[in-house]
């Protein structure tokens, strides 16, 4: 068996900055949806959720520091989910 390689240690500062960004984004999404923008507020709220997810994936779940393989696998799953959603909604047009 191969020896395990060194794991990168991510600083507490990085995590704190990311946490701060995530909380700011949450506040923004609450404030934006308070203003009645109709359908745009759905798009804004879900885009902010998407950005937050990317931050969690990259920093908290270490994708930025891990092998590329993980990111590729996750991209595959997300593409699959998007395709299912698109194909399903073709039926509702």
């Amino acid at each position, binding site marked *: 068996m191969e020896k395990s390689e060194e794991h990168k240690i991510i600083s507490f500062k990085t995590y704190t900055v990311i946490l701060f960004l995530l909380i700011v984004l949450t506040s923004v999404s609450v404030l934006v949806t308070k203003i009645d923008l109709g359908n745009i507020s759905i798009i804004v709220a879900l885009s902010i959720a998407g950005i937050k997810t990317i931050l969690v994936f990259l920093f908290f779940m270490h994708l930025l520091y891990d092998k590329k393989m993980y990111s590729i696998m996750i991209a595959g*799953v997300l593409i699959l*989910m998007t395709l299912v959603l698109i194909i399903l909604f073709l039926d509702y047009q």
Partner: protein
Amino acid sequence: MKDNNINNHYDHEGSKIGMWLFIFTELLFFGGLFIVYAVYRYKHGTAFELAAKELDVSIGAINTVILLISSATIAMSISSIQLKKRKLTIILLATTLILALIFLVNKYFEWGIKIEHGLYPGSGILQQHGYGEILFFGLYFFMTGLHALHIIIGIILITIIMLKVKNEKIHADRFVQLENTGLYWHLVDIIWIFLFPLFYLIV
């Protein structure tokens, strides 16, 4: 890192890939529910918006922040175990646990208020509302309930991991179980990141 891992059947990378595969099944599982939500919302848009007004945005937002902080603390615990700071690791894991419990307590009161108002699946009061609102509350209780179940499982996992850190079964050279528990916890966080806008914000 150390040679004594060689005969020990310890495969950090392999364990982590396994955890990620499990996370994919979870993503697709919740993804299916989000698709159900999307279809019903498309068909009963106005009813969903009316029903969503019943939910308290501030409780939802507070719970979002609680989960985000708990995600950060468990992520920090992984750095601290790598730095061989056992005590700090345990403190960070305990913080995560407390935050998870606060989340559940909030959820308990939130559900309690809804049930008091007769807004739960199968209640007589809800039957008098429209079809769309019945669907909304059905999905609300099922999806947040399933999420809460994941929180409870997370609490059990983190407790076990905390004990293992305490007994030095998990240490700087062997911490994949802590890392995988962290991954699971972040998954729970990500699901909430989507549940929050879909049920609380879109009104």
